[in-house]
């Protein structure tokens, strides 16, 4: 199980962005992490994968545990070898390299299983096999997202951390990505899915968290979350007759957890 306990993150020594975030991703489950822009979702993923360092950020309090062992002090390359793989926001494929080279790069830490994993990725994304030798920069946005996910899978992760995979994709493509996430999960990989598209995320997740300004403000099974009035209103865009303003519905229950 991947677990965050009361994690606090500070950027540049002064900007407090996460204020005690706690969440759990059980083995082989899909967990959705929702929240408005700037809530700290990406920061949460960075904290897990060890990429805070690049952004001059730091976990100042709390801990991140993988099966009970703390991992928030490890270097990113170590975290990858422990089985956590993040797909960064905005895809970030290496446009000059070929599709296959991108994938091979993903296998940097899992050299032995390279051929198996490559076969698996090509199985999941047949279009990548067709375009294996062409330049990754020429792929369409959706294909690039597939490549980014495929590349993350090349390290044989136990947990896949996805940062807004539906960003900028047409509905049909979102559908396809969604099905692939389900399939990856079915094959035994746990998924932490950060999304703006709550509809998509909640339709496949087992559990969901909602973040706002650096805190988890809601924590429910996905099905319940999808029924929640506030979530329906702000994230699913389904509201009743009165158009609620943000101010007068801000009455989330805040859960008291561990230390905070």
């Amino acid at each position, binding site marked *: 199980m991947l677990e965050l306990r009361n994690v606090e993150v500070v950027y540049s020594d002064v900007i407090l962005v996460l204020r005690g975030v706690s969440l759990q991703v059980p083995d082989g489950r899909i967990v959705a992490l929702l929240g408005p822009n700037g809530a700290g979702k990406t920061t949460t993923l960075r904290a897990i*994968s*060890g*990429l805070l360092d*690049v952004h001059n950020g730091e976990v100042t309090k709390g801990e991140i545990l993988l099966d009970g062992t703390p991992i928030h002090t490890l*270097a*990113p*390359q170590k975290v*990858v*070898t422990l089985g956590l*793989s*993040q797909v*960064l926001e905005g895809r*970030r494929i*290496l*446009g*000059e*390299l070929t599709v296959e*080279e991108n994938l*091979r*790069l*993903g296998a*940097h*830490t899992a*050299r032995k299983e390279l051929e198996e994993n490559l076969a698996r990725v090509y199985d999941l994304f047949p279009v990548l096999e067709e375009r294996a*030798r*062409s*330049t990754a*920069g*020429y792929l369409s946005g959706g294909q690039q997202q597939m490549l980014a996910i495929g*590349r993350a899978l090349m*390290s044989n992760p136990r947990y896949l951390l996805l940062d807004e995979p539906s960003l900028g994709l047409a509905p049909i493509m979102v559908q396809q990505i969604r099905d692939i996430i389900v399939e990856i999960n079915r094959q035994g990989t746990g998924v932490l899915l950060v999304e703006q598209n709550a509809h998509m995320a909640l339709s496949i997740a087992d559990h969901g968290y909602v973040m706002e300004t650096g805190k988890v403000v809601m924590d429910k099974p996905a099905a319940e979350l999808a029924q929640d009035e506030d979530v329906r209103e702000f994230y699913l865009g389904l509201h009743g007759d009165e158009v609620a303003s943000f101010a007068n519905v801000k009455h989330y229950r805040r859960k008291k957890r561990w230390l905070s």
Partner: protein
Amino acid sequence: MDWGKIVRQGLIGGVALSFIVAVGLFEAFANRMVIDPILTSGWVLVLWVPVVFGYRATRQVVPDGATVRAARPADIAAGAVTGAIAGAVLGLLVVITSAKPDVRDTLLALSPSLVQRLSFGHSVGYGFGVLTLGGAILGAIGGGIDLVPQVVRRVVSTVVVTILGFAFGELVVGDILRSLGLRSVDQFFYAQSRGLKPLGAVILAVVFVALRFLLKGKFKAIRERIPLGTGETEENRATRRNWFLVLGIIALAAGAWAPNLFGLYLNEVLSNVGLFILLGLGLNIVVGFAGLLDLGYVAFFAVGAYTMAIFTSPASPAFDAPPQWAFFQALPLVLIAAALAGLFIGTPVIRMRGDYLAIVTLGFGEIIRIAFLSDWLKPLFGGAQGVLQAGFFPGEQRGGIIVQWGLVLATIGIITLIVGLLRLNATRLITAGKMSDIRAYSQPVTIGLLVAGAALTIFGLVSPGFAVWKIYGIEPPSMFRITLVFVALAAFVSWRLRDSRVGRAWMAIREDEQIAQQMGINIVTTKLLAFVMGAMLASLGGALFAVKLGSIYPHSFEIMQSIIILVVVIVGGMGSIKGVMIGALVLIGVLGGPTQPGLLREFGEYKLLVYGVLLIWMMLKRPEGLWPEARRAKELHQEEMLQDAWLNVEPASEGVSG
């Protein structure tokens, strides 16, 4: 007629002409003949200007899709006016110079002899007239180029290229002719280091024009018969790679033997080219592959040279009883020293990026040089006196290494064998996978490589020329051969590294450090590895440099060296192994290195000027380099790439070279 454009181009042309003359380039080349008494290369440097600007003044920029305006007779007039303006500006310079001799205080090149030359032995007024008229004629030619039938243009361009090529290549052609025992042929065509004889020039021009028209289309036919393929299928690409391999091996084997044909000067030039290829390949790993801009690269070159020098020299300041090792005995130590230096410099700076890294490495490069120069380290490295007699051996007058072509062939043979074995492995992978169609032809090539490798190795080993350890004495051909061996090794290492796991990791770091980290790449060690690999290749160059010169001084390792190496890499094409070779051939071979002369010796101190002009021109017109790696070209032409992607066009350039 677009008068604004004509005047503008004319003035720019005039400034260009005046510049070439005023800095002294014209005079510097005045004594190098192209065609013996008729044409000096100084005039060649000047004559092209009105033609080009005449052409530019009449050319219009045509937006995509618009119809091109047909060339018309008025273009000739426009070109003539442009050329006349350019010529008149130069004429004015001559007039001013003769009227006010004190301009010489600032511009030394504006000497009375120059005025004399540019006024053709008459009054300056006469000179002004002739220059203006000449400019007009040349400009008219430039402006009217599109009006002339294509056949004529072909003939003229062939004549120009042939004559210039043979005139400037006199050193090469003459050397080869003489060593083939064809001295009389040499004397027939050349006026002994004074350019072509007029009759020789005419004969060559006629022969080459004839050849051009007789052979027209023949090459294409031959090329088509070779199954090179033009489409971008996997198969074609593999075939091309195979041809490349085979040609490369043949070229290397020929290169091992070739120095016998060359005279001293050409051997010297070629080993300088080799030296800079070696250095360029090393820097290419750091800058081209890993994207770390290292401006202090010369430090590793210095470390290699000094290590080689203090262990081989009988006058080594570092030891009371100098070890006086042989070149190959000291070589492992050189590599170790360079690797340590790489770690030493790399560790503190590796976390910096981009400009910061460049500045800090620049500093470190200077620190190393000043350390070698310092009194503090004088007991080790001899301070400003440096280390003398590097590569001298007891009882021998001039020490070093003789490398016979036997050794070179054996080395090339071994590399070929390794390549063959690597391919064998690749073929096995393919058998297991799905690309079984490649097997059909890649196997014969693999077998061919293995057989050729074995043959070259055995032949090299048994040939009387295989003498490594104990033959002393250094002569240019052997210098060239050992450089060739090192270059082959460096190219092989670069090539294998590029396509390896480490190579991909470097490229990932170059493109997106965060992604690289996310992929589980250890940024620090991977970058350090690039530094160390680059340092080791540079130290090989340093070792060669030490035994070649025999004496090593700190001032041989100034910043200029780093910069020239970087320019070689940039001009050739960053990240491209072939590019580095082309870059070194063009820059070091033709123009010359920072202290080494090239084929055009006359450039002398103007070399840096030409480097600068070339660099600016490259950045504007061909930022990806002369022979880029396909990837780098893409990156720099992203804009077009995006448009292509948008229009759904498969780019033609994709994967042309690996």
